[in-house]
């Protein structure tokens, strides 16, 4: 009951901090998931569908990056965007854009790796049939993407789940700045460190509920599309 009261107090707070935190969390998670899957899904489909020299290496590289530690991804983006880094001139460090870039680095290999395994399961039969009717190249890739579209829903959920629950990279490149780059996960860490366990728990529940609502809504939309 105490936690529930805390949530209501936070949501209705006069300064609207929690509402801003939720908005920033959603903006970062949606943007990074969309960009990462837009890159990762076609990339994974290319690796899964076509035979080329170094394919096994590409698959292994992808699988390795699927387990990329978030703090390392954060550190890489930090080096890129920090004042003395190669992209320092754009002054993106400690911004939501920097957090999105870190999430893209984390989610793209996941999207590519999952897509590669989805497509690879269907690829031999599709490739053989395609060869027999003279279908190849970009057209073949397009039809394969269409054919696997239902499974790509789970790629999106996985990517979104990673983005919304990630804390290490977001903390490093975002800096957890109040009213700017604070998101639910970094806020939870901060409240825990300050000993505000009730508030941290309340934020955790908000995160869980948001994640549940979005996943359920997406699953409902996908199921609607199938019927």
């Amino acid at each position: 009951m105490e936690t529930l009261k805390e949530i209501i107090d936070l949501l209705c707070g006069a300064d609207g901090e929690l509402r801003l935190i939720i908005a920033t969390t959603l903006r970062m998670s949606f943007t990074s998931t969309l960009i990462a899957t837009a890159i990762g899904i076609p990339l994974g489909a290319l690796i899964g569908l076509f035979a080329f020299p170094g394919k096994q290496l590409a698959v292994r590289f992808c699988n390795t990056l699927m387990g990329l530690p978030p703090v390392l991804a954060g550190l890489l983006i930090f080096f890129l965007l920090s004042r003395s880094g190669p992209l320092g001139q754009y002054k993106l460090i400690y911004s939501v854009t920097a957090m999105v870039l870190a999430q893209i680095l984390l989610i793209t290999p996941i999207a590519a790796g999952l897509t590669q395994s989805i497509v690879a399961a269907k690829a031999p039969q599709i490739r053989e049939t395609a060869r027999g009717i003279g279908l190849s190249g970009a057209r073949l890739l397009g039809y394969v993407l269409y054919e696997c579209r239902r499974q790509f829903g789970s790629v999106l959920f996985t990517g979104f789940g990673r983005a919304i629950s990630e804390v290490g990279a977001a903390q490093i490149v975002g800096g957890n700045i109040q009213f700017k780059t604070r998101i639910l996960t970094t806020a939870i860490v901060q409240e825990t460190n300050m000993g505000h366990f009730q508030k941290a728990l309340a934020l955790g529940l908000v995160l869980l509920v948001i994640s549940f609502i979005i996943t359920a809504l997406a699953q409902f939309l996908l199921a609607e599309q199938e019927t």
Partner: protein
Amino acid sequence: MIKLVQVEKYFRGRPALSIAAYTFERGGRYALMGPNGSGKSTLLRLLAGVLRPDAGEIRVEGLAADAIGYMPQFPYIFGFSVLKNVLIALPAGGAERRTARAAALQALERLEIGHLAARPGGTLSGGEKQRLALARMLVRPRQLLLLDEPTSSLDRAGTLLAEQVLAECARQGCALVMASHDQGQAQRLARTVLLFESGRLAGEDQF
């Protein structure tokens, strides 16, 4: 038309097919017969270019790539409509686009599945899928058809219809190379029967 010279194919180090020399002639009608695992499908996949030989050479002479149609034993049927499944075998754009729909419908009618044109491919029965795969392969003019047990899922009527369509193609000069376990079918469609055993060409009969 297609010459095989010292062709060898291995799967995980095991010999799957070994042919010293053989030539498939233009307009020929060949049936590949033999027990399961004797190398019939491997030969068809090599001829279609799905597989590459581990040794030797396959020389295709006087045939454009799109003049060769290949129907695998388990053809993939896409989830979209039956009509679209046929349309994908035709060029995507240009002037031909206008006639593509008519050609696709005609191919479906030829296999007596025109009434299924709007149905999603995934809802078809095994026999209907095989008819669709045949229609899709035949929607373009072909000079060589490579068929891996093309009537294995068809009932008697469907088999006779498919044979009739294939015989018509053959009469128009299209070469057939077909794997089959049905000796009657081989006699009805082929002029040459190649007998396979343990990945080797064990015999040849002419009708």
